[in-house]
């Protein structure tokens, strides 16, 4: 569960930085480099997050609804971290 929290944090943080820093920099200031770095980082973090949620859902016999909610939360900035709060601590 600790690994899931770490991956969720990276996923959420990279999504926020991408949306509110890198994309405005690209479109308002013409600086494209942050998108080129944060875009791939967020893509890999999202894949890793969904894969980890899928693994833990089977391994720990989660209800299907919880697994789907956690996976879908990855689509919202920091949604994954909020969704993780609903899980038992360990």
């Amino acid at each position, binding site marked *: 569960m600790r690994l899931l929290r770490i991956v969720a944090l990276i996923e959420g943080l990279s999504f926020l930085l991408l949306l509110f820093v890198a994309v405005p920099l690209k479109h308002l200031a013409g600086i494209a480099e942050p998108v*080129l770095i944060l875009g*791939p980082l967020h*893509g*890999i973090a999202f*894949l*890793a997050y*969904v*894969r*980890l*949620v*899928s*693994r*833990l*859902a*089977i*391994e*720990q016999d989660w209800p299907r609804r919880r697994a789907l909610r956690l*996976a879908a939360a990855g689509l919202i900035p920091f949604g994954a971290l909020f969704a993780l709060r609903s899980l038992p601590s360990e």
Partner: protein
Amino acid sequence: MPDYTLLKILHMTAAALVIIGVLLSSFTVAKPPAAARLASIRRWDRFVTGPALGAVWILGIIIGLSGNWFSSGWLPVKLVFVLILSALHGMQTGGMRRLAQGEAVPAFLRFSPYIALVSIAAIVLLASAKPF
């Protein structure tokens, strides 16, 4: 940026290892083998398939950026199938761990080979034909 052809060779090699590993895991969770064989399949999954999947993600993104493929329509569709295959592999890894502990796996995992084959076929088709 590294040589594009070299990146593609590495990406396809890693993808071949993922295909082998996911299909192997698919048949393992669909029809569980004896304990000794399960242990060796889990070792393969941990030391070969898992790292190969990570390499596929990273190399795929580098290739997408260096070839300017992210503006193409086929790539987002391919990424959906990559996501499905990655999630399936996660479920298989969890399922094999349950099998190793003597527990049953969820019944829907018996469809693993079909989901894997459809996803692999779609990825190969989209990456090679680049239809749109």
